[in-house]
């Protein structure tokens, strides 16, 4: 194949951005075009601001469940039958919330004036991921990205970290709302009422914060550190949900319940934390956010996202240094990325994930919204259901996870379906040169020219080796 070096404009649009829209002006100065996007990012686009709140739906369902269970106390046989319609309605509502949020996410990705910053939203949302493995999480997923990630994508890492760990979605996903200090007043009271009943710790959130959100695995923390951190986190919960919540409480808001907090100072990674109450875990989090291990963990993931599956060590070192120097100021990190040479290598460095590929395909067709296309279903079909990586580690960011036989066939099938209605409107020969400015390979251009129909040509462009990578 006649490989052609990628132009700076093609790299800015496709590797840093979310894919070129042929109708937009081509960036003349690629680096400046990226840096100026910091101004243009919209934290709460209209489509997201109007999404329905998740908490009330979850809270209402749980209250109905409780009421029915109490009512059925005398006749337990009838419980299942009365719960079923309520559960079905609940599943339907949460699915709708999820689908609407996915559509809003796609809408924003297709129309944003700041595609690079929007890409960073997707990056951080995956770094701090939840997984919509149950209806609660499906309901909260959109709010998680909108309220915990987007406001901080141009802010500080530590602020995003705090917002994420206090968001109801994360508190539910990693079982924090069920974790009670074993010697807390709430636990002692429960045992008095019901001798032998033990309420206690759930260390899931504490462990994943250290392993995945901040320090990174094998960075020197021990099981004892995880357990101590989990003790410090007890009491962190949701205002209107979970054990001991106020019936009037807000199910979309964080709360600290002192009665559930494990009393006493904690020792995590050699530091003693003798703060009282909520501040104890906050202090640990802020120290974790400042750790050189966190700087290097985040730098490696950023480097991998822009400069290749095996990120160049020099770039990673530069990013880690900037993370420490700037106190985790994210725009400073982005600036280092944009001004470093490594992410500008003129050959494709990344195989697009299904999300990246779908969004870039729609942008390449100048679509200003998902229209009738249900992105939630499309992404499931392509193997990357939105906000559902199935594990707190998030989706993997290497080609080995996405470039696979069946996945490739699926993209060809989907491209064919996507392109079919646009044969009379979109000329692949024209847009090919617009989405890959001065960079489209001659082989692809030739096969596109020779295709039997305009729709077939468009589908071929979307699955060409040039377009599958960035």
């Amino acid at each position: 194949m006649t490989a052609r070096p990628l132009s700076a404009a093609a790299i800015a649009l496709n590797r840093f951005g979310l894919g070129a829209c042929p109708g937009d002006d081509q960036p003349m100065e690629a680096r400046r075009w990226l840096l100026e996007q910091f101004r243009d990012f919209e934290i709460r686009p209209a489509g997201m601001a109007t999404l329905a709140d998740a908490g009330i739906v979850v809270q209402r369902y749980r209250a109905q469940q409780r009421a029915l269970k109490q009512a059925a106390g005398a006749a337990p046989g009838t419980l299942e039958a009365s719960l079923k319609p309520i559960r079905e309605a609940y599943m339907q509502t949460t699915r709708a919330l999820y689908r609407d949020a996915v559509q809003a996410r796609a809408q924003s990705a297709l129309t944003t004036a700041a595609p690079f910053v929007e890409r960073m939203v997707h990056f951080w949302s995956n770094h701090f991921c939840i997984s919509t493995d149950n209806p609660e999480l499906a309901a909260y997923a959109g709010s998680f990205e909108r309220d915990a990630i987007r406001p901080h994508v141009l802010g500080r890492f530590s602020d995003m970290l705090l917002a994420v760990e206090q968001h109801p979605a994360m508190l539910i996903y990693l079982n924090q709302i069920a974790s009670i200090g074993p010697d807390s007043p709430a636990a002692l009271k429960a045992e008095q009422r019901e001798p032998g009943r033990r309420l206690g710790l759930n260390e899931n959130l504490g462990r994943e914060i250290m392993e995945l959100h901040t320090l990174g695995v094998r960075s020197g923390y021990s099981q004892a550190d995880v357990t101590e951190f989990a003790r410090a986190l007890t009491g962190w919960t949701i205002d209107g949900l979970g054990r001991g919540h106020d019936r009037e409480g807000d199910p979309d808001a964080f709360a600290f319940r002192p009665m559930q907090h494990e009393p006493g100072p904690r020792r995590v990674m050699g530091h003693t934390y003798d703060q009282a109450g909520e501040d104890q875990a906050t202090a640990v989090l802020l120290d974790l956010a400042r750790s050189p291990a966190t700087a290097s963990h985040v730098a490696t993931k950023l480097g991998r996202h822009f400069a290749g599956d095996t990120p160049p060590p020099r770039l990673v070192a530069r990013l880690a240094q900037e993370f420490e120097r700037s106190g985790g100021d994210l725009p400073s990190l982005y600036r280092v990325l944009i001004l470093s040479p490594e992410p500008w290598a003129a050959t494709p460095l990344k195989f697009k994930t299904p999300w990246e590929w779908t969004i870039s395909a729609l942008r390449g067709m100048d679509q200003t919204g998902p229209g009738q296309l249900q992105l939630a279903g499309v992404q499931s079909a392509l193997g990357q259901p939105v906000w559902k990586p199935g594990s707190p580690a998030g989706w993997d960011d290497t080609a080995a996870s996405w470039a696979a036989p069946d996945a490739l066939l699926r993209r060809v099938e989907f491209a064919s379906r996507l392109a079919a209605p646009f044969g009379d409107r979109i000329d692949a020969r024209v847009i090919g040169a617009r989405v890959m400015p001065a960079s489209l390979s001659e082989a692809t251009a030739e096969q596109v020219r020779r295709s039997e129909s305009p729709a077939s040509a468009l589908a071929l462009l979307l699955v060409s080796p040039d377009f599958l990578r960035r």
Partner: protein
Amino acid sequence: MLVRRNFLSCAALGAGALWVNPQMALASVGTDRRFVFIIQRGAADGLDIVRPCGDPAYSALRGSLADGASKPIRLDGLFALHPAMVELGRMYAQRQALFVHAVASPYRDRSHFDGQNVLETGGSRPYQLKDGWLNRLASLLPRIRDEAIAVADTVPMALRGKTPVSSYAPSSLPQPSDDLMTRVATLYDADPQLHPLWDAALNASSLAGHVSAKQDPASLGRLSASFLVQENGPRIAMIETGGWDTHNAQAPRLAAQLKALDTMLAALQDGLGAVWSRTTVLIATEFGRTAAINGTGGTDHGTGAVAILAGGAVRGGRVIADWPGLAAGQLYEQRDLRPTTGLDALIAGVAGESLGIDPGKVARALFAAAPPGRPMTGLIVA
């Protein structure tokens, strides 16, 4: 959902999602024996699956997990099987299933992702090796076909490596036009990364033909079987299951998980027919869970776990365990089941015996990074 795609509809949520993304991948190699590896991602609780009811410390540690409504299935004087695994219990009674308890890979920390990497690569530490032990196992057999096939849309780590392995998942999307397929092939032919993937995808879809396209456990079992029974089909298969990370509400969640696994095993046996007698299924997880129940009716990440062998080729009807005990002083780091058997020694032994290769040779090829000592033997009916 990697086996059945519901195009343009929301992925399953709710109860069914406990059984997260079962995936399957297969490799074709020259033998008439079949070897299936089922990975349980998320650290399945061995102490709840094969319960050491006869251990004096058991009931106090396990609390409500030890006294569920249904009675576990008695295996021997010490152990009983989780009551959800009725079919596996039947296989055990027919001497076609066995359990290896207090087993662990060389990995001793408690990260799922590192633990799975060690389990799948066969390294002694995470990310030490770039290919999987199942792929290296396939390389030990004479290849009689040009390409391997697969049933999943990506290839799991254990099967990644030099030996060609593909992946397949039925699709409800319409078939693209011949013109598009031909031009795609022309472009991909010149691309060193895409060329082998595309060839493998086309081979797999031509072999798949009529198979069932549903993603429930029974369909997945039958789908796996339908590949394994074909004359020119694969001999090695891998199925991925998720949803085993039961930090809370373990009693109902694990029961649902195990019922799904049990159903899949039964469907696999059913679909394999006469081939079942030449089949070994190995089920393993990255590590076990804490010996004690936690504050939320679940268990946290632990160490020693249980591995399961099932199949007509298995010398079953027994629990193999150098039982370390659950008393306070006997636990690993005062919290987990102490591992006394190396999972790698089990894998080397069972893979070698199942496929008729010297287990010592298998051990050297699969686990060169951390030789597991003597492979376990006597696991398979000669």
